[in-house]
């Protein structure tokens, strides 16, 4: 008998029912809920007279559509539509008795940052949320993925999900990362190599020396973008770093339960003889600081490259590239470093954690935003914000000319007034560069926090290695 992958092990431990046609019922350990994809699900429950089956395993937090400016806990300061969704979540959380972090609570933040921060996310769990970046929680060795609103309703009512099993894919990053290269560069480079549909039908396990060397926060950045590669979920086997990170968090197990949990968590790894349906290997040494140039996360190149031409591609991609260069206002052959920007956004569930803010602040220390560039820092949670203030990072950002905002998704999806203007070009630490994502007509270049900080200082896309080399 062949061994099992980590995914196989978690799957087997959560199988409630296995029908003859292959459809399975999977038990859900944690269900995260936010204001945008849940109202219709709660409405559905009410209409059918159903209850939330496991309110103690359900956690709600408003994040996508909340203002990130001061005074937002006063309802009158929200736009009409934000208010309707936030009030609906308030009411639903209360009526159904689920765990809730309202905007007035310092623990509020982006759902994928709050879950790990509060210890809701633990190794070996199944975690779902009506949001595709649920993959983030995979960094703990949890099987975590996004679901639609009908499935949100299904999980609320039954604490299970109807699923068919995905295939196993291994993405190995060997060796060590060169200086200036971060978790974001890893995850973007993987998508650049496999394409946005390369992971479709798979659950990815990231492994290898370069992944092991990452902090928990870096691992979350990597898993966060598994969905951008088309995968259902991304996972990293838990290790001492994981246990260390989890220990002592408010909802992590304590005492004898901690010991019991730990002994199970230590069995959560892929066996040596496990079967992989697909394997991708990348040398850590070959990864460079990258940026995206187009309107798909697979449109990624090292910062030292030039804007490609449509003819460099094949098939349907030729037209797609023509369209995206037109949208992005770019000419083939332009060095990426010559692309001027008008805005910088540091935040999101990809790169809105404390280490991300520290890394960006390190580059910005004693420097200023380039003329004509506006900058916004949006911490991933109220606690991240408080920690940054304790360390004085807010002063570095505001001295550089950045706005220092309250926690939320903000410009990452531009649902509220935090948006790009038409044609405005932004260096962003978020995860999607789709047309109109950050504001109608807005142009997004994805990159790591240090690369975004470097671009902020020079006013154009910049190789952070050159900028920081100047100072040493």
């Amino acid at each position, binding site marked *: 008998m062949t061994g099992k992958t980590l995914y196989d092990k978690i799957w087997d431990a959560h199988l409630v029912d296995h029908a003859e046609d292959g459809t399975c019922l999977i038990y859900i350990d944690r269900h995260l809920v936010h204001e945008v994809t849940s109202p219709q699900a709660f*409405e559905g429950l009410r209409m059918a007279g159903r209850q939330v089956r496991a309110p103690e395993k359900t956690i709600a937090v408003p994040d996508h559509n909340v203002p990130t400016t001061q005074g937002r806990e006063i309802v009158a300061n929200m736009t009409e539509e934000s208010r309707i969704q936030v009030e609906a979540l308030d009411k639903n959380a209360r009526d159904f008795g689920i765990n809730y972090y309202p905007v007035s609570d310092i623990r509020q933040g982006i759902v994928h940052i709050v879950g790990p921060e509060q210890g809701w996310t633990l190794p070996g769990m199944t975690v779902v949320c009506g949001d595709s970046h649920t993959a983030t929680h995979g960094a703990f060795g949890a099987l975590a993925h996004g679901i639609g609103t009908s499935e949100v309703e299904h999980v609320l009512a039954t604490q299970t999900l109807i699923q068919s099993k995905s295939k196993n894919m291994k993405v190995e990053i060997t060796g060590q990362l060169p200086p200036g290269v971060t978790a974001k560069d890893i995850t973007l480079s993987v998508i650049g190599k496999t394409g946005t549909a390369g992971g479709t039908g798979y659950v990815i396990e990231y492994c290898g020396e370069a992944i092991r060397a990452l902090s928990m926060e870096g691992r979350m950045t990597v898993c966060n973008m598994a969905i951008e590669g088309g995968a259902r979920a991304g996972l990293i086997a838990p290790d001492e770093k994981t246990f260390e990170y989890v220990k002592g968090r408010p909802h992590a197990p304590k005492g004898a339960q901690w010991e019991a949990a730990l002994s199970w968590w230590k069995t959560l790894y892929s066996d040596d003889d496990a079967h992989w349906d697909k394997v991708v290997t990348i040398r850590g040494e070959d990864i460079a600081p990258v940026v995206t140039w187009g309107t798909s996360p697979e449109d990624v190149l090292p910062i030292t490259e030039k804007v490609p031409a449509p003819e460099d591609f094949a098939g*349907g991609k030729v*037209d797609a590239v023509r369209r995206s260069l037109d949208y992005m206002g770019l000419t083939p052959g332009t060095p990426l470093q010559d692309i001027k920007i008008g805005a910088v956004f540091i935040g999101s569930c990809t790169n809105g954690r404390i280490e991300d803010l520290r890394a960006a602040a390190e580059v910005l220390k004693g420097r200023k935003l380039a003329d004509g560039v506006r900058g916004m820092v949006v911490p991933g949670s109220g606690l991240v914000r408080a920690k940054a203030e304790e360390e004085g990072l807010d002063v570095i950002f505001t001295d550089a000319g950045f706005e220092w905002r309250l926690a939320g998704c903000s410009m990452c999806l531009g649902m509220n007034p935090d948006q790009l203007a038409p044609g405005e070009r932004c260096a962003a630490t978020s995860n999607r560069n789709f047309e109109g994502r950050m504001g109608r007509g807005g142009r997004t270049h994805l990159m790591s926090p240090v690369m975004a900080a470097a671009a902020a200082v020079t006013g154009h896309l910049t190789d952070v290695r050159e900028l920081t080399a100047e100072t040493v």
Partner: protein
Amino acid sequence: MDKFEKLTGIAAPLPQVNVDTDMIIPKQYLKTIKRTGLGVNLFDEMRYDEQGNEKPDFVLNQPAYREAEILVSGENFGCGSSREHAPWAIKDFGIRCVIAPSFADIFFNNCFKNGILPIPLPQEKVDILMKDAEKGANARMTVDLEAQTITTSDGEVISFEVDPFRKHCLINGLDDIGLTLEKAASIDSYESQAGQQRPWV
């Protein structure tokens, strides 16, 4: 849920790869707390200019395709966010079937929950259907879920695969939650067993 058995209708061609959920329904329309009414904003930024006027060259604005019930498109359709607003908008517009070489996982799932049939087919087959769709309003296609076939306006028959459970639910308009609740006993016993093995959860 609405049943899907057999559909004969106009197919609109959208020969583009990576049609993402932000294109299908931009975020400013996610502020609703209802499932209906999103059809007018389907493909909003491709369909309307900044003043809100229709762009005449966009396929669904052309007289031939205003009543389209089938959409034929490129690879990786529906990539991006988990927003179910995307299939809600498609359905509200009147489209019940999307045909493409491949689909993003969550979008694909969401379609079935809303009475929409997504059909992945090899590129060559999609090319045939794309050509047929380009013929306009007189070229009606038939999608027969029971028989698992698509018949072009010229009578060419293309068969497709579909997961038997999903097919069963779609044909009978079955609600997943109702089906799962029939297994409540299994969920109960799983919970009590798992509660002993992993009490910290």
